[in-house]
């Protein structure tokens, strides 16, 4: 009974938050509500027994996306102050057709899903069987890095493409910090000294735990990115123009290492991308975590590079 009540509460909360996000009086309010929506969604995933998704939703869906939206909002305030103050909702001729379309889509899918009998998930059973031989405890990590690792490899390439696409619109000449905080706020240094190591610790834990429990490179990368975002916000890292070598290495490390290991095993007669052992899984996940974190921090900074800022 309590379970049902919690579920209903979360479901109703999600709907209300989604509605409020869309009709928000101002863009800023909409962004904040979107972050709250993401966190509630993470709760919903956790309730549905998908802790990996919950972690990813909280770290990426709410955290990183929210931070990126806020940065975009700051830019909007700077270049179009009048537009940022306007209500986010403008009447569109498309609103009604889109609403009808979305509504009917939900109805049709709902009907179709109700009709589905819980078939034996062939691939799911195969994962459960194969996992016992692999030494991994988390089936999600097994799928992502052992069984369907081409998907993961290409996802890393997608992330790189997304960053490069965003980079085409960065103004290289006017690379500037999201918060050019010139004056030092007391206690920022002390706060960073606590939070940054702690974040790195949590990211590493998520990465290592990913082999047995919920977690993995994507969640760890997002958490690691949070410490980078903090450093950028505090002015310890400044956006820099031009793609310098170590950010470039960070961006490409995951894709390169994954591809090279995946190709190298072919020389020993193994099939393409058949990872030679758990050490390869950990190595690739670490590289992917670094790449993901670097991509997200650079996207947040809106620049192709970072340089050390004045403390």
């Amino acid at each position, binding site marked *: 009974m309590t379970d049902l009540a919690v579920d209903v509460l979360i479901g109703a909360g999600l709907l209300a938050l989604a509605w409020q996000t869309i009709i928000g009086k101002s863009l800023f309010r909409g962004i904040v509500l979107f972050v709250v929506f993401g966190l509630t969604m993470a709760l919903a995933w956790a309730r549905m027994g998908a802790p990996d998704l919950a972690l990813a939703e909280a770290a990426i869906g709410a955290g990183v996306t929210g931070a990126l939206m806020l940065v975009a909002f700051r830019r909007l305030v700077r270049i179009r102050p009048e537009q940022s103050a306007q209500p986010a909702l403008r009447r569109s001729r498309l609103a009604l057709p889109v609403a009808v379309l979305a509504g009917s889509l939900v109805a049709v899918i709902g*009907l179709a*899903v109700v*009709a589905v009998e819980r078939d034996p998930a062939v691939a799911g059973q195969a994962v459960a069987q194969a996992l016992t031989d692999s030494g991994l405890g988390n089936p999600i990590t097994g799928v992502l890095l052992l*069984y369907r*690792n081409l998907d993961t490899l290409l996802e890393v390439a997608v992330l790189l493409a997304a960053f490069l*696409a965003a980079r085409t619109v960065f103004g290289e000449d006017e690379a500037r910090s999201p918060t050019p905080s010139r004056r030092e706020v007391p206690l920022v240094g002390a706060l960073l000294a606590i939070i940054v190591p702690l974040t790195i610790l949590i990211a590493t834990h998520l990465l290592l735990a990913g082999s047995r429990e919920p977690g993995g490179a994507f969640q760890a990368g997002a958490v690691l990115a949070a410490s980078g975002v903090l450093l950028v916000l505090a002015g310890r890292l400044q956006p820099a123009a031009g*793609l310098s070598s170590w950010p470039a290495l960070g961006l490409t490390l995951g894709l*390169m290492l994954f591809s090279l290991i995946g190709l190298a095993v072919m020389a020993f007669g193994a099939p393409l991308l058949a990872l030679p052992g758990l050490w390869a899984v950990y190595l690739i996940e670490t590289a992917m975590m670094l790449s993901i974190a670097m991509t997200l921090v650079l996207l947040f900074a809106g620049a192709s590079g970072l340089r050390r800022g004045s403390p």
Partner: protein
Amino acid sequence: MTEALLAALVFLPLLGACLLLLAPSSWRATILLAVTVPLPFCLLPLTLLIADAGLFEMTLAGHPAPLGIRWRLDALSLLILWLNVSLMILVGLAAGARFAPASDVGLRFWPLWLLLAGGIHALLLSADLFNLYVTLELVTLAGIGLIATGGSGAALRAAMRYLLLALMASLLYLLGVGLVYAEAGTLDLYQLGETLEPGLLPATALVLMLAGLLVKSAIFPLHAWLPAAHGNAPGPVSAMLSAIVVKVSLYIIWRLWFWTAGDWQLPAPGLLLGLLGAGAILYGSALALVQKRLKMVVAYSTVAQLGYLMLIFPLSGLLAWQAASYHLIAHGLAKAALFVAAGNILASLGSDRLRRLAGLDQRLPMDVFALALASVSLMGLPPSGGFVGKWLFLRAAYEQNAWGWMALVALGGLLAAAYLFRVLALTCFHPRSHGHSTRLREPPTLASLAGLLLALAAIALGFASAPILALLEAAWPGAMTP
């Protein structure tokens, strides 16, 4: 060995993109050559293999489907791979003239270019619905980035619009994939073909996936994003987008339709898809006739020509299959030539307004010649690749007594002739007053040459039809012959 060749097709471009970001600027041209030049040599032995065996499958990571992912190469994917590699080389020549690899703008352009190529290769090889989704995302995002390298406000707006629509389309497709998995417990395209039975849930899933893919292929009436995106991107980018990027999502539709849902009897939905194609041909051609800018004419022509690729659904049969595949390749080459030539004209005139083109045949003879040759193929005049495709369509329609489709193919050719001759006539029009002839920046010879080579390839395809059609015949899923 064959596995290594397939791996090279996907991983050479991906690793090349990484190296471009890391290496000093003076090495970039070498890296580009080093990852592009081997590609045709990878395809040669694969072609011999497919001509011989018809099919090659490989299991990735040593886990067979349904647990893992398969790559599968047949004549259709092989032909489109050839198309992409040819475009990478020839359009790449034109792009190299505009985006010098060692320059700053080159660093923005070329990594995306290689990621696009790697994504297309992975898409053509993949036999897994979810893996296809990831490759589609890679192709789309790289394409959007390439559009944005144009830098103009119009290009950025078009890129943004494309991004939003493409993301929505991806979500529709992904939703369909999720439903399919819930029903069948596997994501392998060909295993699904054996297990998936018609029903409410599979039908919903198929409709969702088709809707998403139709948006990505810009099939009328979901084409709204295409003309702006293709018309405002830099010339070489437009060439790639029109010649191959919109085709690969259509390729997935073919796979779904004729392989996964191959034994479902779907005459009515097939007719509907065919009618969308007819709408595309008529509407795209009509709008191409009234455009004021050269690149917009070419972009609307893409909307129209994509319509032919939908005629395979109502006419389904070996002939229509050969016709559509041939048309896909021929249109890819001809359209790339048109866009490269149009890009050169735009770069040298500073504008591509049609009335500014007067007298251009004397000032930019090579580009206008490329334009004319590519037009010949696009109109479907013999002897060209476009002719073979349209001729096969006509024969397919004739054998099924489908007079309506016959009339449509003929009318589409006439309309194409109308909008292309309108452009050509303007370039050869010499006004009496030469007083206000504008300054002209000669396009780089390499860029003009690339356009010309592409156009010649589109024509030459008309002479090479026998072996290609034989290859395609072997790949046709026989169960579908009506």
